[in-house]
């Protein structure tokens, strides 16, 4: 990817973060942040899913593979899941997946899971700003020797991750 497209108008590199937000808590919180005009960093893109439990590890890996510098998953607080326990599933997958990503040299700060309830617009702001700050510090993601290897990794680990 050429520097041009991941850089801002002033030409300096800017991170790209994909954020999977659950419809009931975190996405609503993001709306609240909007309604409350809580300005925050723009270098993230939200994908709405019904529940953080819907976030397939492959989505995350795919995002990294396609050039995301960070991935954020936002769900309801433990005990508050609109679907009772989807967020717990998300949590368990997150642990396995982040271990795998780290073993592949993707820093911990690049993959994050946050509980943000519908009323926590402020938290959306702080989490986003903090994550962007950390990833700016890390710089662009240098994937370990290209996607092919990543896919290979994926195949071998798939079972273990998906069987949670």
């Amino acid at each position, binding site marked *: *990817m*050429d520097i*041009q*497209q991941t850089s*801002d*108008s002033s030409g300096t590199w*800017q991170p*790209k973060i*994909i954020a999977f937000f659950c*419809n*009931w808590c975190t*996405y*609503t919180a*993001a*709306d609240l*942040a*909007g*309604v409350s*005009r*809580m*300005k*925050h960093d*723009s*270098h993230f*893109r*939200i*994908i*709405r*899913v*019904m*529940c953080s*439990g*819907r*976030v*397939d*590890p*492959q*989505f995350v890996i*795919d995002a990294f593979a*396609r050039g*995301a510098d960070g991935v954020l998953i936002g769900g309801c607080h433990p*005990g*508050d899941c*609109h*679907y*009772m*326990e*989807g967020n717990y*599933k998300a949590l368990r*997958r997150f642990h396995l997946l982040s271990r795998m990503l780290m073993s592949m040299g993707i820093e911990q700060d690049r993959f994050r899971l946050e509980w943000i*309830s*519908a*009323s*926590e617009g402020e938290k959306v*702001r702080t989490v986003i700003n903090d994550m962007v700050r950390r990833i700016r510090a890390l710089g662009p993601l240098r994937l370990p020797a290209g996607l092919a290897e990543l896919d290979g990794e994926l195949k071998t680990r*798939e*079972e273990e991750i*998906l*069987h*949670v």
Partner: protein
Amino acid sequence: MSEQNGEIRIGFYVCHCGHNIANIVDVAAVARYVAGLPHVVVSREYKYMCSDPGQELLRQDIHDHRLNRIVVASCSPLLHEQTFRTATAKAGVNPFYFQMVNIRENVSWVHEDPAEATLKARDLARAAVRRVAAHKALQPKTVSINPDVLVVGGGIAGIHAALTLANAGKKVTLVERAPTIGGHMAMFDKTFPTLDCAACILTPKMSAVKNHPNITLWTYAEVTKVDGFVGNYTVTVKHKPRYVKEDLCVGCLECIDACVYKEAKVPDEFNRGLGKRKPIYIPFPQATPQVVLIDPETCIAVKSGKCKRTCVEKCDRLAIDLDQKESFDEITVGTIILATGFKTFDPKRVSYYGYGRYPNVYISLEAERLINASGPTSGELILRDGRRPKTVGIVHCVGSRDKNTHRWCSRTCCMYSLKLAHLLKEHSGAEVYNFYIDIRAAGKAYEEFYDKLLEENVHFIRGRVAEVTDWAVIPEEEGKLIIRVEDTMIGVVRRIPVDMVVLAVGMEPQSDAQEVRRLFNISCSTEGFFLERHPKLAPVDTFTDGIFIAGACQGPKDIPDSVAQAGAAAAQALMLIDSGEIKLEPNTAYLTEQNCSGCKSCINLCPYHAISYLDDKHRASINEALCKGCGTCVASCPSGAIHQNLFEDEEIYSEIDGLLAERSPESTAV
């Protein structure tokens, strides 16, 4: 007309939302950019897409350009997705060939740099365009609505909602935790600004509830379990033992006289401990239902069994049952209205007002009881130390507008303080001081009431009281409570000796609001009050279909507002009931049988038991009726056999893909 010869023809529309979006996002640039994307046939910007002309534009284009996919970039889908889906459907395209891009809440309202915002708006638009191409035609699943309604909470809000629905011919179950309905309003003496007595306007409604053929009234009961979904909820209710058979008791109260306790010894809840009751009692004269109950904590018979049980002998209807146990009922309803009310702020949390240390410091509710004709002093203003006050200080904003306790304004305190000022002066002829930060008398005839008080020569001192002490510096202060405050209008600190202090305590969420919230699967705002679906456009809806909120459980409210909300909640419920059915998002999971390896890893994942294992076929099977569409099973299926409508893997991948895809050099020039 849409899916002929499979060709995908996308129409893209970016909304200015007046200046809300257009001020930050270069909408024209976005439209130009999207026009260059594959499958896009039409790409326009428009001032207000949600307006009639906006929707008409959409309809016209679909017709003229044979569009079969629609993307609108405007506000949050939580606000207008339905609007545009309907518009799409009107024009003959399946509504699920629509995708919405949120460039207001998620872009223009939260970002300041136009270049960055525009860049982001484009990425999101590109992702949506790719996603919509992968969409499938779907039929919304419809469920029928059980016409029965559950109302939780028997305060004025719950009462009003229940009566409204019952009068509309619906069967209502009203569940109240306390032994009687009436809530806080029943404790008030008079109501502002009209000064008509609370009991006079409330008790008729209470008995109406009791006698209404369509209302089942369950007091001293609590909801313990809620299952199901909109239109089809199954609710378990626990009846706490009153040790009195409700159906047999006629409220003659002879048992109370008969109690072995000759004197009432127990501080009574209804009078906030200012009066006493016996272990067998009725909360207050107009209690509804007119049924006595026994407090197991203090009744000798229940506690130890060693008692002459004179009450039992006395009751010739044999209503008293000292062995009564808690019992459960299960009911099915289609909709639920929560009116669980509020709790008053505990002023012990602000030590500097001396509540609990100085007997003559009262909270507003206690003052209400003190001046109430049916109160512990039968309306005589007699203080805890037996004196009659010559001067009274009313302290506003106790536990309100204070970041150390509660940030919010409780909205009712100013007015009830004015009311109490008037009543206290009327009852005792005392000098009354109001200590306020701001007087908030915004309401019909409220300001006029404030005028009235000013003319009655009640003192209004603008300043937040710093402390209430018994620290006398000069002889005139001996034996008084000293209020230290800055008179901010005059700019001096004043020490004002009074005989009685009334703390205008604010309103806070019920202490168990969080548990109740979980029980009914709704959200709370930061403050802990129940969260409405939209602060302006859906004030009584929640994020859970079929569950509505009314009254002070949603935020501080006075009686008129609570009643208005209760009516609104009832109307929302009626809307569902009378439409008979509700369309649900077709976002359910489904299985491609041939791919299922029968590994069973999904079976236990589903919290709704929608997935079962067919032993004969050695594979799973999904009951779409039970599926609520979280997608957890989809993400966990190792053989990718489970899919979710509206959130297909393919759809999400193309969204990711779209967000991260390279942009052509042309596009980067903003």
